């Protein structure tokens, strides 16, 4: 399959007055067309930073980002227009992803105009098509964001992302601000569109149960590092990293079957440390129930536990 995005040894440090924030220290992954890579992690673990680097909102401190075999690791303003067309993003907060002073029609029109997708006369039809694609009635064209609900806003944001006919969409927690009843619909739409258009998704979330339902592969981030990466099925069957296990164990679930999947109770302790003061050695060792001496001394490297299943832990 065609490899869309390839990210290697990505690193991003922010210089602030508090010190250097090591937001992302090591991220390596790839996404092929039609595939969803789920990026999971606690708040502050650097998920959004990765997404923003892919989009060009941040310039990587180090590492490579290749899109369709071209190096794109630069600031978005320096990226060619065609590239912007290929890559789209849906943000976390539906409330702020739409300009409250522009109607839905205008919002959807903007990308079409910038990328000259269609002639003036067809614009409106395109807009209606887009609305239809995300399941919104055509009256919405003239509505303003303030009269939409959170889910509907997010649908418009998705429609906007789709408008340029991209091949990869970054979804940064698109549903975490919404209720489950609304989330379901969005997830479904996303899956449907992916199938129709063979899109690649970089799907960011902190909700593992959701991941189970949408991602083909899962990558777990902790404190700026990807600590485990695997096919979804493998991942939930045999979570390897102690952190992954802790995460899974903490998830509240609604049924007995799920309860069974959860690893035997590893109680979660401690909080994720500040990315300014990264612990030495394995960054997880202060919270790790299985830590060994070496863990606090040297950082483990990624190992391939079995084909396609990578983990960063001395246990393996």
């Amino acid at each position: 399959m065609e490899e869309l995005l390839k990210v290697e040894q990505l690193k991003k440090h922010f210089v602030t007055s508090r010190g250097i924030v090591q937001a992302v220290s090591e991220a390596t992954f790839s996404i092929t067309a039609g595939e969803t890579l789920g990026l999971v992690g606690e708040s502050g673990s650097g998920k959004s930073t990765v997404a923003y680097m892919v989009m060009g909102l941040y310039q990587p401190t180090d590492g490579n980002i290749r899109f369709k075999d071209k190096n794109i690791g630069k600031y978005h303003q320096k990226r060619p227009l065609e590239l912007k067309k290929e890559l789209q993003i849906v943000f976390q907060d539906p409330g702020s992803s739409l300009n409250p002073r522009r109607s839905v029609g205008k919002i959807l029109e903007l990308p079409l105009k910038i990328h000259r997708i269609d002639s003036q006369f067809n614009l409106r039809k395109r807009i209606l098509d887009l609305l239809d694609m995300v399941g919104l009635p055509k009256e919405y064209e003239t509505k303003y964001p303030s009269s939409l609900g959170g889910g509907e806003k997010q649908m418009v944001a998705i429609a906007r992302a789709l408008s340029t006919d991209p091949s990869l969409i970054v979804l940064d927690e698109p549903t975490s601000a919404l209720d489950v009843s609304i989330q379901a619909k969005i997830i479904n739409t996303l899956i449907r569109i992916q199938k129709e258009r063979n899109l690649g998704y970089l799907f960011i979330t902190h909700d593992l149960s959701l991941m189970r339902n949408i991602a083909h592969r899962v990558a777990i981030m902790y404190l700026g590092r990807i600590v485990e990466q695997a096919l979804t099925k493998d991942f939930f069957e045999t979570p390897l990293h102690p952190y992954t296990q802790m995460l899974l164990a903490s998830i509240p679930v609604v049924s007995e079957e799920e309860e069974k999947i959860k690893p035997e109770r590893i109680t979660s302790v401690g909080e994720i440390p500040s990315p300014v003061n990264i612990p030495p050695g394995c960054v997880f060792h202060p919270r790790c129930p299985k830590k060994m001496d070496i863990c606090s001394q040297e950082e483990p490297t990624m190992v391939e536990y079995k084909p396609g299943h990578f983990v960063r832990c001395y246990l393996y």
Partner: protein
Amino acid sequence: MNGVLEETLTTIDDKRDDHRTRAGRWWYQFSKNPLSVVGLAIVIFVVCSAIFAPWIAPYPEHAGPYVNYGEANQSPSTNHLFGTDVFGRDILSRVFFAFRSALLMGIVVLAIVVPIGVTLGLIAGYFKNTWIDTVVMRITDIFLSVPPLILALAITSVLEPNLTNAMIAVSVMWWPWYTRLVYGMATSIRNEYFVQSAELLGASKFHILFREILPNCLSTILTKMTLDMGWVILIGASLSFVGLGEQPPKPSLGTMVSDGARYLPEYWWMAVFPGLAIMLIVLGFNLLGDGIGDLFSMEES
């Protein structure tokens, strides 16, 4: 800027879907607060009396170089509601005409200041943490480091004292307030996701500044403009109070107050009525501005 206007108009136009009800709701909410309605009434009154001064002033010729010492120093009466001044001129008529230069001052100053201040604020806010931000905002801070009235006085005094220069001086002092206001909004709006998506879609800087960010500042700007009409007029009156504004014999409220103050307490009406007139204008725009501000903040929530 034409584009922005068009944008705004179409924005309003697009909202026509429920135009009647919306306008109705606005009026309903606005009129909920009687003070806002009073403000609107005052503003309408002042504007009308300025426009129609030649027709409604009982003695329009008194607004010019007119003297009639026989009628001088008359206390308020039915002939002269506000009395007459030491030249025998009808104070009420002069107040009506003075509204003209007062409003003119407010309008001209805002017309100069708002585009400049807003544009600079947008640019500095959008380019936050770059040298552009630093340069613009530091200059703004310098202008804000002395009370505006004082610098305006100084500038007018070293130039010729007249209405034009007063307007220039006040404008020089006033734009930073808009820059700072818009800067604050722009810095937060530019972090909103909708601005970032426009960027990622490849929209031009112009589009982002004036079509994405600016429309979101408009309601605040409009509110401030309404309030500022009052404040600019007040500053103008202060300048003419010390003789640095509109020059006699053209009537101006500040000059009328300071001239009248010489004849206290006997001829109190000469200072008090023009003084109250200034208060009325400022009050009107204040009430109206607050009403509009409330309206917008209610619309947004």
